[in-house]
């Protein structure tokens, strides 16, 4: 239960970090909060020769609104998703999901960039990137690029990040008044990995759904959108009939794998229950606002 020996480098800039990785010829890992990486090192699931601590790079910090986008530096901590006023206003789904991420002490260290870069399909923040139509800023030797969340998550723990590249920031389109969102999950114990979780963002300029983003966690190899369920809501009033149609459509979106913990059919059932619960909650909010 102890990590293999490694050398430790603490660069002050992104350029130094990229150079330190290149020098290690692939046998290196970046470390930020380390809340997933350190257990993996202790269990020797990973044993890089070099750890590059990006936790002190100023350019990877900061929370700011620019041109209709909320930019969250990769080093933004989970606890900030929980507490930060700009996140509460402009990315409410992150604030709603934050209390479900692990435990308070993990949230004090863990970073949003690290969580999204790891892309654990059972984690809350990666799925919320899909639900918020976020873009992920990546920096590498070739420069900087932005990848939409839909293209970022590719397969189990596989993302658009190439070896040596760094996740620099998350860009989230600021929430608009006509958008409503909800998050919840079903877990056996608080703080445990969820059996299923879901974040929803509906855009409803009047009384009908114009745009729907529904993202699930813990239902497949990546965080997953539910396009058939979304399509079932477009143009509809959010009523019991529309909710039933969205729930029925989920069978076309999700095909949970056999994993020994719960049968796929049960996971799909729980996803339907959760979707109904969340859409019902939004329906109630709309009724109260009217």
């Amino acid at each position, binding site marked *: *239960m*102890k*990590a*293999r*020996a*490694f*050398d*430790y480098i*603490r660069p002050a800039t992104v350029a130094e970090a990229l150079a330190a990785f290149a020098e290690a010829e692939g046998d290196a890992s970046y*470390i930020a909060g*380390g*809340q997933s990486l*350190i*257990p993996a090192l*202790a*269990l020797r699931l990973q044993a890089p020769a*070099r*750890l590059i*601590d990006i*936790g002190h790079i100023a350019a990877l910090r900061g929370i700011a609104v620019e041109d209709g986008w909320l930019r969250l530096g990769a080093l933004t901590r989970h*606890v900030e998703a929980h507490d930060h006023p700009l996140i509460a206003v402009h990315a409410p789904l992150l604030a709603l999901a934050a*209390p479900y991420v*692990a*435990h*308070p*002490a*993990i949230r*004090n*260290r863990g970073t949003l960039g690290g969580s999204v870069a790891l892309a654990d399909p059972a984690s809350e923040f990666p799925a919320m990137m899909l639900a918020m139509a976020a873009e992920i800023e990546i920096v590498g030797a070739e420069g900087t690029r932005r990848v939409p969340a839909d293209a970022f998550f590719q397969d189990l723990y596989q993302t658009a990040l190439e070896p040596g590249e760094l996740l620099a920031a998350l860009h989230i389109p600021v929430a608009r008044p006509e958008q409503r969102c909800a998050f919840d999950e079903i877990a056996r*114990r*608080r*703080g445990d990995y969820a059996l299923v979780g879901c974040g929803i963002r509906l855009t409803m300029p009047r009384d009908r759904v114009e745009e729907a983003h529904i993202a699930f966690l813990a239902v497949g190899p990546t965080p997953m959108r539910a396009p058939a369920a979304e399509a079932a809501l477009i143009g509809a009033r959010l009523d019991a009939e529309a909710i039933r149609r969205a729930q029925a459509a989920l069978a076309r979106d999700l095909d949970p794998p056999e994993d020994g913990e719960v049968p796929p059919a049960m996971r799909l059932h729980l996803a339907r229950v959760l979707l109904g619960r969340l859409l019902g909650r939004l329906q109630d909010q709309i009724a109260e606002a009217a």
Partner: protein
Amino acid sequence: MSAPLPVTLTVNGETLSHLIEPRETLADFLRRDLGLTGTHTGCEMGVCGACLVMLDGVPVHACLIFAVQAAGADIATVEGLTESAAVADLQRAFHERNALQCGFCTPGMLITAQGLLARTSVPSRAEIRDALSGNYCRCTGYEAIVDAIETVAHKRAAGEAAPRFTEEPA
């Protein structure tokens, strides 16, 4: 290159410089190099909460940070919080309410409680349980622990100073 590195950090108010192997966790550094064995190592993977310490004023798992990463940080362990009497009222309440049996989890419980009360002056019982979700107790159960933290929350909110812990509660 995995040779020990010079690290300067503050532990319980004292600034120290040590040579530390990069692979050594903060928990092992505190226990082995400094003899501060009040920080317990249980699961060593961030699940049980026995190794919690304060890092720059907030609870973190000492098993989930390498000591070299803590360079420049201000660490408080249960020993430091005991000496400064910062958690004396919590310790007294745990004692009075029998909120510990073997005591293995207690340092972590105290640090979670201290962190919670710094954020939320009078948390509900549900909020206390939620905060304790990352602290495992395998003998007492959580009811007495929640009672003890709730009692201290109300006392602190009423402005009662933390009395210094003594072996026998008055």
